[in-house]
């Protein structure tokens, strides 16, 4: 019997967490396999919080990798005005030593932010330059968007390079 894989999921806001949760359910994870570390609401520097939490969780994961081999983590941080590659470099730096290819760590960096992906995955048009974030709104379930993400529609991926990169990233944690 395959052992359960347990993940820590670091997310920038509740909307991102809800999207990731559905994506991970789609990959076969259950609620009991996932531990969420979601940034507190209303923070001015949620990306900073994510980087701090990402670094702390990555170090715990590595320190326990021998005893708890079926563990991993997913970190999602908005690119905002940064390049996706810059965010990856920040995530590497936050955990002191860069991510190794075999480490069960997936980094999802929507550009500009998760709302960009949700628009495209919901069938609307979007680009990576415009900021679509609707501040102050209640997060919504996004089952359809998560399902579309996992279907990996080539047209959507061509539209958003950050989405294409993320689709490859989640394969790193597939149980």
């Amino acid at each position, binding site marked *: 019997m395959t052992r359960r894989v347990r993940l820590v999921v670091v997310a920038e806001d509740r909307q991102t967490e809800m999207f990731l949760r559905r994506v991970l359910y789609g990959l076969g994870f259950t609620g009991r396999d996932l531990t969420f570390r979601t940034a507190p609401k209303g*923070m001015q520097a949620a990306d900073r919080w994510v980087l701090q*939490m990402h670094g702390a969780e990555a170090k715990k994961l590595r320190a326990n990798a021998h005893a708890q081999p079926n563990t991993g983590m997913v970190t999602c941080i908005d690119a905002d005005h940064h390049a996706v590659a810059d965010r990856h470099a920040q995530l590497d730096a936050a955990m002191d030593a860069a991510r190794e290819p075999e480490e069960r760590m997936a980094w999802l960096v929507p550009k500009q932010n998760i709302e960009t992906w949700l628009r495209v995955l919901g069938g609307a048009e979007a680009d990576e330059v415009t900021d679509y974030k609707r501040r102050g709104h209640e997060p919504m379930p996004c089952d359809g968007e998560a399902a579309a993400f996992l279907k990996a529609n080539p047209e959507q991926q061509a539209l958003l390079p950050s989405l294409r990169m993320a689709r490859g990233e989640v394969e790193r944690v597939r149980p």
Partner: protein
Amino acid sequence: MLKRLRVDNFRSLVGTTLEPGGLSLLIGDNGSGKTSLFEVLDLLRRALVEGTKLGDLFLASTLTRWRTTTAQRFDLCVEVGGDVFDYHLVVEHVPDQGKVRVGEELLAIAGRPLFHAEHGKARLFRDDHTEASPLLMDWARSGIAGIEPNADNTKLIRFREAIGRILLARIAPATMLGRADGEAAHPLPDFSNFPAWYRHLSQEQPERMRDLFDDLAKVVPGFVRLRLVAFPDNVRDLRAEIDTGKACDYRFLELSDGQRSLVALYTMLHCATRPGALLLLDEPDNFVALAELQPWLVAFADRLRTVHCQAIVISHHPECIDYLAGSEILRAKRATDGATVVAPWLFDASKALTPSEAIARGWIDD
């Protein structure tokens, strides 16, 4: 949806305002007034929906100790089906007569009345706000509680029904009885009447039981189902069927405190989260295993959004605080005059701490 509650002259609540969101975490030191806010909402439900005498709800001991006024004021702003209702109740204590009565009770939409009572005289208004026939009123009780539904007062009734969907949960598994001698449409705050509530739910919402049992099977090894065994005199004994190799019936009282809490929490998640409900959870984390907390919170938060209901959670537990901080944190504290003040708490990320760590250290900016 509750938009605002204002309370004056109830314990430490003096001009205290609560403005919750869809899912709010209410934090604060012991004695800061958090539970009093919940109790006020439950007392208003009992006054407005159950028609309980005000004297049985608003005891003299609930008057703010350092004030001399004997009038307690409660204001609710509630949105129901697109209408925003303003409700105002003044509870007058008359110590020399040993009476507690309605000083004033007003329900209105945008300033236009649906009900108004003052000094024992009540006026009922139709949905179009024209005045209906005069009412006789027992001013020891809420006048709204006794109004019979008819075609002209649908708005008032909708408001009252919304108040009826307030549910206070301060689960105390040790008090949860194993038998039900009837049905209860509403659980008591400590869930001591859980079997009677479950008996009601199994009749009213049988379609929810499959999902409830599926979830309980994930947290109680071998759990199959809850069932009620008939005894004479209309008594039912609540049993949990558990199969760990051999199916056995366990009396509800034989479950551990933690298991009984989980049964109550998942029952609430599946059966009490109705559209427009307001769930008040006072330390739901008590007795529950650490690994079970976040899965329940995640499922609960998802369910709230799916069915469009509202919840406020009081917690001192790090797991609860850190997860619910992703929604909204309200902080209750005592001002220099002793009165409770509730305000949003915006967490400062620069401290490199989780919210619960900041609270534990007392590193909370004033």
